[in-house]
């Protein structure tokens, strides 16, 4: 199996298996996966990006307003009216 990583401007954007990008060893793949699983908790203002040395770098972002949820359909409205599960 071929392992790869996608690097953009000194940051690891993704890893995967298959064709393309920068080939890496399985050991490096697993170490990046482990790093991704240990990503610090993000907030609305603070995000993290993974550096090539597998450390996380924080950066601030403008809080984005929450996107409106889709309107419930008739069945969901009926569930809500009847006391069913609502989001």
């Amino acid at each position, binding site marked *: 199996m071929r392992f790869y990583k996608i690097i953009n401007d000194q940051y690891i*954007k*993704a890893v995967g298996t298959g064709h*393309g990008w920068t080939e890496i060893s399985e050991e490096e793949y697993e170490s990046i996966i482990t790093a991704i699983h240990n990503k610090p908790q993000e907030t609305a203002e603070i995000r993290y990006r993974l550096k090539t040395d597998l450390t996380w770098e924080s950066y601030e972002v403008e809080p984005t307003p929450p996107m409106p*949820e889709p309107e419930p359909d008739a069945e969901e409205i009926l569930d809500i009216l009847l006391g069913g599960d609502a989001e």
Partner: protein
Amino acid sequence: MAVDKLVDSTQLDSDLTSVANAIRTKGGTSAQLAFPAGFVREIDAIPTGGTLITKTITENGTYDAEDDDADGYSEVTVNVSGGGGGSLKSGTITPAERTMTLDVNLGSADTITNAVIVPASETPLKSAGRTVFAMVIINESYKKSIVCGSNSGGSSLFTPVTYDGSKISQSGSTLTFNGGGTTSYYFETVLYRWFAW
């Protein structure tokens, strides 16, 4: 005229009548037929079976013999290449950051007409925003896209969103899945499996 055989005139009349009846039936007439001119005239008037040609088909489609100036095909040879539907391509990708688009590499620039991407994580997806649970692109040339997503926090699935346009695009060997749209969904930092053919 050589006269060298005896003829049973009754039998001859009966046989000629049988032939005339067959000609009348085929020609759709009940007119009296005089032998031999009437027989010949009616037989000549019967339409032939038409012009049949052979044809080799190399592309999918609907074919009409009239377009080939023929009445039909006597033999058809079909030799349609598989195009983009011939081989299944697959792979995985785990984004390090939550993202609305994912690029995967097909390994070749073969035209893709169908694709699907799904998270392979058993860990419930948690997110501050909507999450892509599955994206399916069906029909030739991405004429229809279906995105299944969850609400914020991943506690419930939304009704799949169907797009008439494409939610993925192909540039050479790169296939891009795009969760954005009227209702935008994000790919989380979990393992996704993708298949394309």
